[in-house]
């Protein structure tokens, strides 16, 4: 039954890029990239009990790693593979000291990391400074550059599939069980011989790698990167997606990313209708993030996916 649902979902999502009108394809691509980043956040928050308010920093690091290497002549496919590696390394460097922090301290520290990165990117001439990095070539697969949205839609699909598969395996692994124990009681888990600190760092790096991989695709897709592409709100957005979908579930990130992206998209169209004030799109999307986040935390504290699961059990 489960396998069938998964296969059906895969078939539908694979058919969508061919069925959707051209103008909706960017939304499809960005939605899947958001889901990829969110999968990492969900792993981090749901299994390792760490709140990250700076996850988009690793998205940016991946994007810049791919973009810079491509600009400097590295084959784009290698650039795409470099992106998650660099992001994960950055996470290890940053995480080694910062993961000693807990709870709101860690949340704030990750937010600080994001702000520091933004400022470094804005001032670093190597990264194009405030103007950004331009002229990133498109991703080439087997010698053919991907120029249209459909190609990127399938790349993003494959990336998300890989990430979800890895998540699934991590959750079922020894390390996954150890982490869940640690999220419950760290001292008890440590006393039981679980190398808590090491696992936490591994998950942190893994979640950064997810974000970095998505960032790599993003860099090639847009062909342009600037500090303004990675605002603080992006980090918050993925937390909203993770919380709304349901932390510590495999499908939660996809559901959360879909709900938020589509809602924001719908409101954006509403907000840019003629006659609407210029601030309407921004105000509407802020309001949506805010109200959804508050409503979910207050009324569905475990998120949409677990809540639906409970409902279905109740009715069947």
């Amino acid at each position, binding site marked *: 039954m489960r396998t069938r649902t998964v296969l059906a979902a895969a078939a539908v999502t694979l058919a969508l890029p061919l069925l959707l009108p051209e103008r909706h394809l960017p939304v499809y691509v960005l939605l899947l990239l958001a889901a990829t980043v969110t999968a990492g956040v969900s792993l981090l928050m749901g299994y390792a009990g760490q*709140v990250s*308010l700076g996850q988009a920093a690793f998205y940016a690091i991946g994007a810049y790693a791919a973009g810079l290497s491509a600009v400097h002549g590295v084959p784009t496919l290698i650039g795409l593979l470099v992106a998650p590696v660099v992001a994960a390394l950055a996470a290890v460097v940053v995480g080694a*000291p*910062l993961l*000693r*922090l*807990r*709870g*709101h*301290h860690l*949340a*704030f*520290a990750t*937010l*600080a990391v994001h*702000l*520091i990165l933004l*400022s*470094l990117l804005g*001032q670093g001439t190597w990264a194009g400074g405030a103007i950004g990095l331009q002229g990133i070539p498109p991703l080439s697969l087997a010698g053919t550059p991907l120029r249209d949205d459909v190609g990127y839609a399938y790349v993003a699909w494959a990336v998300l599939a890989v990430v979800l598969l890895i998540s699934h395996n991590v959750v079922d692994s020894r390390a996954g069980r150890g982490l869940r124990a640690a999220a419950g009681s760290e001292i008890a888990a440590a006393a039981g011989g679980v190398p808590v600190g090491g696992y936490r760092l591994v998950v942190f790096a893994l979640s950064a790698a997810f974000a970095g991989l998505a960032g790599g695709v993003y860099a090639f897709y847009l062909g342009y990167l600037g500090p303004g592409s990675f605002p*603080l*709100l992006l980090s*918050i957005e993925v*937390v*909203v997606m993770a*919380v709304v979908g349901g932390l510590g579930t495999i499908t939660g990130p996809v559901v959360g990313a879909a709900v938020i992206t589509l809602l924001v998209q719908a409101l954006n169209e509403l907000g840019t209708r003629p006659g609407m004030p210029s*601030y309407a799109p*921004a*105000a*509407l999307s*802020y*309001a949506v*993030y*805010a*109200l959804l*986040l*508050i409503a979910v*935390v*207050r009324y569905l*504290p475990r998120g949409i996916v677990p809540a639906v699961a409970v409902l279905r059990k109740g009715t069947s």
Partner: protein
Amino acid sequence: MSDLLGYLLTGLGIGAGFALVGSGMVVIHRVTRVVNLAQGAFAVLAAMLTSALLATGLPHGLAEGAGVLVAAGAGVLTGIVAIGRPGTEPGAALIITLGLGVLAYAVEVTVWGDQPRSYAGLPGAVTLGGARIQAHYLLVIAVTLPVFAALMAFFRGTDPGKALTACAENPYAARVVGIDVRRMGLLAFGLGGALGGLAGVLLTPVQQVTFDSDVTLIVNGFAAAVLGGLTRPGVALAGGLLLGVAQTLIAGYGGGAHQLEIALLVMLAVMVAQAVRAGSVREVAR
């Protein structure tokens, strides 16, 4: 030499604002264990409202007072949403305050637009020991110090202040003696809102405010607050002043745009050092 004095006073002025934001977070955190990420929004809200009221011709003083009052009200509302439900975990409440901070963006952009705003503060400049500094910075310092003195007197010398501390020390015992812990939490949120609002109305004449200025304020405020482990308002004052002075000195002596990073790095270093120390204490205790 005279440069130095000028930087010091300017830094103290800016730092006083950070200290107000930070102490607001401390007041809320020690009573409710919630890290209030909407704290910067109180400042922005108060500043925007004050600027709008001044534009309608309301005199200085009244406009600022109204801004602070509304910020206090916003604080109470934040508290109601964040901790109003019995059994809300501090972690969940943190996410809720984050949501409320973003909601404030929507409100501010809708009501006041997304352009920076400012208004005139105390006019003129003062020459002190050869240094010319804007008089408004002195006003900021002159308001902040008595406010902190009053805050200390409130916590140390009045029963409601002690009751707030009691809720922080032992919420169960507070309920045993009949203190309404939830109401005290809301009082703390109101107080935190007022302190944040005061920071906003005081700083706006020297640092214009946009709807997302709350990020800078909250980062610096949190950095100040975390020095005192988020429980000691007095340390938040010292921390805020230190940060303000350090940033002004860095900017003044050529550090240019790196002020925020330095504040952030200091904050991270302090937090990690505190965590390491707490960790080693825990290990010794075992």
